[in-house]
């Protein structure tokens, strides 16, 4: 047994070490839906030993039943964004002539375009107020919002005790059914006006399509204490695009060689359970940061021999270091009936957040940096014979401060509610455990009013036409195409549910 202890401990340690520090597909999806199956609910760190414990607290795998889990889950993302009406601030149409300079003669940056182009487009032509064919397509504010989406997932789980009451392994995966995975980058500031000209919820959207695959193991050191470790499997992409630009006005003639490398990466979770007495259980887990990084290098060569290149580091599905702790106690035990109360805390280090364009929110100013968060969940568990159920309620503050500056991170405080249940049935020689569960996240209304003093004036006072030296007409204070100016609000729901079937092995 001592040799087994040493061997298994080394396996767990190795599992943790090889995965530390590598990029991996994150699990914001699993965090949002909570544990599927086995009565874990939103408190998988201490409750509901099952396949989902591989992610939430792998040490619990020892207490789960051998079995496989199949589930179908639906998640509806309904986050409404309201942009406040603009109060002037339009970038003048004359900026489109690209002859506007600062008073010192420095050309206005090319990423500043007339507001009218964004709202109404610029027709094709060579006359005044026209653009070269095919023209500049209109992209009105918030016309390409990304919420209001329903997604479905297939879930598969497995728990197997390799050494009964000593060493167990678990597997848990949530796979989006429509698109295997998606990654959608956007700028959280005025640059997005050139693309969707819309605001997008920062912590949902494509984050809910991440591939979430977890493999874990648990080892019982002493009867009261188990430890566990798991790794999240995912993808990391490196793309290199070598281009030869024959004509900058006709990109259909572009010559392009792509090189794409995809690698599987790992990210660790470690957990522990402590059961001092049979009716009281403690659990804790630490999740390492996770992200899905896409590094794109673009090299362009021009017919003159001029070569230029750059690298864009997109970061998707970023998840922070988080420390989770929970306690569960049986408060009523009467015959076949048991009722438990459960509570858990989660501290997440969101202050280190990296957004989709690979930058920290603190790039917009120290006051706009994200904060670490402490979220809490409480709930009840019922068990009567072969039936069991749970209800959890929790609160998760947003790490995002009020967006008073250039940044437009859309996020809200959340109130969470989840419920579910299952029952073990004997059908002939087979035993199955069908179940159902639901969750609701209410994103509490939040308003963000911009402070004009913190907004980049895209056409500074005193700007002149390079051709005449005359002031640009229509400049009056702040001019910006920031889609979030002069403010915005958001609220909504993220809710879902599904059915589960577990088959004991």
């Amino acid at each position, binding site marked *: 047994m001592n040799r087994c202890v040493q061997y298994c401990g080394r396996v767990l340690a190795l599992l943790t070490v090889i995965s530390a520090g590598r990029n991996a597909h994150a699990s914001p999806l699993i965090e949002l839906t909570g544990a599927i199956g086995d009565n874990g609910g939103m408190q998988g760190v201490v409750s509901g030993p099952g396949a989902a414990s591989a992610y939430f607290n792998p040490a619990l795998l020892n207490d789960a039943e051998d079995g496989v889990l199949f589930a179908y889950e639906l998640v509806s993302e309904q986050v409404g964004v309201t*942009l406040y009406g603009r109060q002037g601030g339009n970038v003048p149409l004359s900026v489109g002539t690209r002859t506007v300079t600062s008073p010192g003669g420095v050309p206005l940056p090319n990423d500043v375009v007339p507001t009218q182009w964004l709202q109404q487009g610029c027709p094709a032509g060579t006359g005044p107020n026209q653009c070269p064919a095919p023209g500049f397509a209109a992209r009105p504010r918030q016309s390409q919002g990304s919420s209001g989406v329903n997604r479905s997932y297939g879930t598969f789980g497995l728990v197997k005790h390799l050494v009964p009451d000593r060493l167990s392994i678990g597997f848990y995966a949530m796979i989006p059914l429509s698109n295997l995975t998606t990654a959608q980058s956007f700028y959280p500031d005025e640059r997005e006006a050139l693309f969707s000209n819309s605001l997008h919820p920062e912590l949902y959207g494509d984050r809910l399509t991440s591939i979430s695959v977890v493999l874990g193991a648990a080892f019982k050191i002493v009867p009261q204490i188990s430890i566990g470790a798991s790794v999240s499997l995912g993808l990391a992409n490196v793309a290199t695009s070598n281009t030869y630009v024959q004509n900058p006005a006709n990109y259909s003639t572009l010559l392009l060689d792509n090189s794409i490398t995809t690698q599987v990466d790992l990210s660790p979770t470690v957990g522990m359970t402590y059961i001092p007495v049979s009716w009281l259980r403690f659990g804790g887990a630490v999740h390492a940061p996770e992200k899905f990084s896409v590094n794109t290098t673009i090299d362009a060569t021009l017919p003159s021999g001029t070569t230029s290149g750059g690298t864009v580091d997109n970061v998707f599905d970023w998840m922070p270091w988080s420390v989770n702790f929970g306690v569960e106690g049986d408060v009523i035990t009467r015959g076949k009936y048991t009722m438990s109360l459960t509570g858990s805390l989660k501290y997440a280090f969101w202050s280190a957040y990296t957004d989709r364009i690979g930058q920290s929110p603190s790039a917009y100013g120290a006051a706009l940096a994200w904060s670490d968060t402490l979220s809490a969940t409480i709930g009840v568990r019922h068990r009567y014979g072969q039936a069991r159920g749970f209800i959890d309620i929790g609160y998760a503050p947003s790490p995002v401060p009020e967006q008073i500056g250039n940044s437009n991170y859309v996020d809200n405080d959340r109130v969470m509610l989840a419920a579910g249940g299952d029952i073990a049935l004997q059908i002939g020689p087979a035993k199955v455990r069908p179940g159902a569960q639901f969750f609701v996240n209410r994103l509490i209304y939040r308003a963000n009013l911009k402070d004009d003093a913190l907004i980049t004036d895209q056409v500074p006072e005193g700007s002149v036409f390079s051709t005449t030296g005359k002031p640009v007409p229509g400049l009056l204070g702040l001019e910006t195409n920031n889609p979030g100016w002069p403010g915005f609000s958001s609220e909504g729901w993220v809710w879902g549910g599904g059915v589960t079937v577990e088959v004991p092995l």
Partner: protein
Amino acid sequence: MVRARTHSLGQHAIRLFVATMASVLLEGCAHDVVLPDEVIAQPTCGDGVTDANEECDVTSPGCIDCQVQPEWTCTQSGCSPLCIDGVVGTGADCEDPHRDTACDLTGFWAVRETSYLRDQVFGTVQVSSNWYLYEISQSGNAFAITSELDCGVHVTGSATIDYPPATKRGVIWLNPEDGTDPTRGQRQGTSTPSPGGCDVTLQPWYFARGVTTAYIPATFSNDEPLADLMPMPTVADPINSNLFPAGATDPTTLGVPGIGTLVSGLVPGLRYSAQRTTTSFATTSSVESAALTLVVPGSFDVNENVLRVTECGVACSLLTTLAVPAVDLPPHETLQFLGKTLGSARVAPIVVAAPRVDIDLDLQTCSNIEAFLPHDATVPGEAQ
């Protein structure tokens, strides 16, 4: 007691869950909303939209401060002067306006010289407009330019190029065609009646910008090709050089050799160069007699050496590449008749003062000419 409370807690939780699910079903679908913009009462003259308190909002000397000037009429697309001072037409609205002399070009003309070049990076066509003010005096079939201003350039295509104000000021009197420089004399031309209207010619002329006149011929009438002339000043590394090569001048008085041009678009920055050009024009088919607008084809050549580039970040090397004349796309000169008399209601809105007396007033005149005869970015033969 504890058990009763915990049991009650469970019931409350179930009720809360049911209430929440009901709320979700009732309002669980979110929609994005954009609230109406607030209309700001601010001056909008110059935005191209004729507001209630404006008579016009177009870039034209007939529309100043969004008010239609006397003897002008304006539409949403532009303004045109009425029938006075050398222009006749029919009716009160001066329909079918034309000059009151057939082939005599005497008077003030806004001139736009349009040339086509190919950049040496992509080989794409750039369209260049170079504006001038001409005052022409004709006797018989011959005419001479008696006053002239060089009003600067605007280039579109793979790059947008303009003169910054300092360059405009530096070149406006630099290459006189009106005899102000006795060594060059007056630029001469002919306008001869023909069966189809008038045949027009304009003699060859040379322009030196950012270099001394030693780099252009002493006598223009020989029409010497630029390639046969003395090599232009050059520097080995325009990106990092601070040299001021012999023969270069500083017309912009910025302490930098050559004329400065503002490049915007794909590769923004400031480019200083030594430049010489030559042009000549002659009709290949007659122009309409007495027309207000004449279009005369011609020839154009340019020599240019980049002496320095600044404000160009990491893309300075692209600014050092230049464009060469597109031999398959000959240039042309567009002459738009203004009027015959300085100070008349037709001429005064554009030519605000006698040329070459007050440079600030001449710059205003040039600005008016550019607005009056705007750049045409159309490349012949390309589908629009």
